């Protein structure tokens, strides 16, 4: 080995980035070359001296400050604040009860029954009550205008009931639908429509995030890429926006990249999202 090559390898040798064979070759050279050995010694001294820099402890308030941040996030996420004395239990609980926590966050309103049969029964009761009231308040036969209005209202109620039966009340059911789509090897086009609709309008952040996850596996479809990009600016949740940014950032898609860049200068966008965009831009999208 010549001195020039040895000198080039010395920093790697000092920092522990040489493989065994290269170390052996270099050390053979150092044993025979005083100049390179002296340089190796100088670099080693610098390296070891750096260890003199003291490690400082965190100030007393740091943990408290972080606890407050954590509580804020838990409140926003609606996450359970279960604490475990054993982290292993907590990790396991986190894995297995993630669905349970999501379910707890997304229970329907207390008065609305969970079972579809009960939902249907309650809806029939409401319909019957409405019809009965309407019959009781029926106008003169000659007054067709009011009857026409009532008919329209009954029809509207029937339509609402039909929609309720088609659209599950709880987000767990909606997540279950998304999970079913995920399992499909080749989801049909309506499945993507469902996912994109969920991404845009589902009230649950978890459902929207799940939709992003599944859609991210199908970025070869133009409709998926377009849908993800178009939903970006209208999202109310910072988490969903960040998930979308991460999904779109990896694409070779100028429109997607422009949509991401636009977020950085939009004052309506959550500061955390804007900061994330700037970080992403720093990594050259």
């Amino acid at each position, binding site marked *: 080995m010549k001195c020039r090559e040895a000198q080039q390898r010395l*920093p*790697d040798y*000092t*920092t*522990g*980035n040489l493989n065994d064979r290269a170390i052996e070759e270099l050390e053979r050279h150092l044993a025979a070359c005083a100049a390179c050995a*002296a340089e190796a*010694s*100088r*670099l080693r*001294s*610098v*390296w070891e*001296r*750096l260890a*003199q*820099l*003291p*490690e*400082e*402890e*965190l100030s007393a308030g*740091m*943990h408290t*400050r*972080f*606890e407050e*941040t*954590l509580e804020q*996030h*838990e409140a926003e*996420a609606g*996450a*359970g*604040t*279960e*604490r475990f004395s*054993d*982290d*292993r239990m*907590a*990790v396991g*609980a*986190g*894995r297995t009860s*993630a669905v349970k*926590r*999501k379910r707890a966050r997304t229970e329907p309103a207390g008065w609305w029954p969970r079972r579809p049969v009960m939902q249907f029964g309650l809806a029939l009761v409401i319909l019957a009550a409405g019809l009965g009231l309407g019959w009781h308040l029926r106008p003169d036969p000659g007054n067709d205008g009011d009857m026409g209005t009532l008919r329209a209202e009954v029809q509207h109620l029937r339509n609402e009931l039909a929609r309720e039966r088609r659209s599950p009340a709880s987000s767990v059911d909606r997540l279950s639908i998304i999970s079913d789509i995920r399992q499909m090897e080749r989801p049909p086009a309506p499945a993507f429509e469902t996912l994109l609709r969920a991404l845009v309008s589902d009230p649950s952040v978890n459902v929207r995030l799940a939709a992003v996850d599944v859609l991210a596996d199908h970025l070869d479809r133009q409709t998926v890429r377009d849908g993800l990009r178009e939903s970006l600016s209208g999202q109310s949740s*910072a*988490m969903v926006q*960040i998930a979308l940014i*991460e999904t779109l950032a990896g694409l070779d898609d100028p429109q997607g990249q422009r949509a991401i860049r636009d977020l950085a200068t939009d004052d309506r966008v959550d500061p*955390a999202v804007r*900061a*994330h965009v*700037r*970080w992403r831009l*720093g*990594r*050259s999208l």
Partner: protein
Amino acid sequence: MDQPRDHELMLAVREGALPLMGRLFERHARRLYNFFLRMTFDREASEDLVQETFRRMLEARHTYRDDSRFVAWMFTIARSRHSDLCRKRRHQRGEVELGEHLPDRGATPDADFEKRREVMFLRTALGRLSAEKREAILLSRFENMKYEEIAQIAGCPVGTIKARVHHALKDLSRLFREQGYEVS
């Protein structure tokens, strides 16, 4: 029972077990603080940066992948927080300034004067490196990271990191000699 690894804890946080981020804070906040302190020489800014980094990890938890390595992910976020601070300071002051010289905590007049002088000198020497070189040498020296990992965190080629570390070592060696420290 073995304690869960950082990766497992972070996966659980990703799935909704937010309190476990507190465990990760206990494990890593101090090392992050010292990284920032050696980058900025500013205690208050370093504390803020630690908080910011953990806050961002919570917000971006859904970006943590099954094949992520927790420490690399954490330092990637930490690095971007530091970059944002530098940009903000540059914007506010027109140039990047390091914090004022750190007074020694708990130092007494009887403390080892030579030792304190050397620490002061080390800080000054590190401060004279560019931020990129300083970051590379700190991650290599204090986090025991290989070039490949530092490159992943910094988002640049391995060769770039290698060059930064090489130059940082050579620059420090020269600065030591200029200041009259014999390095042998």
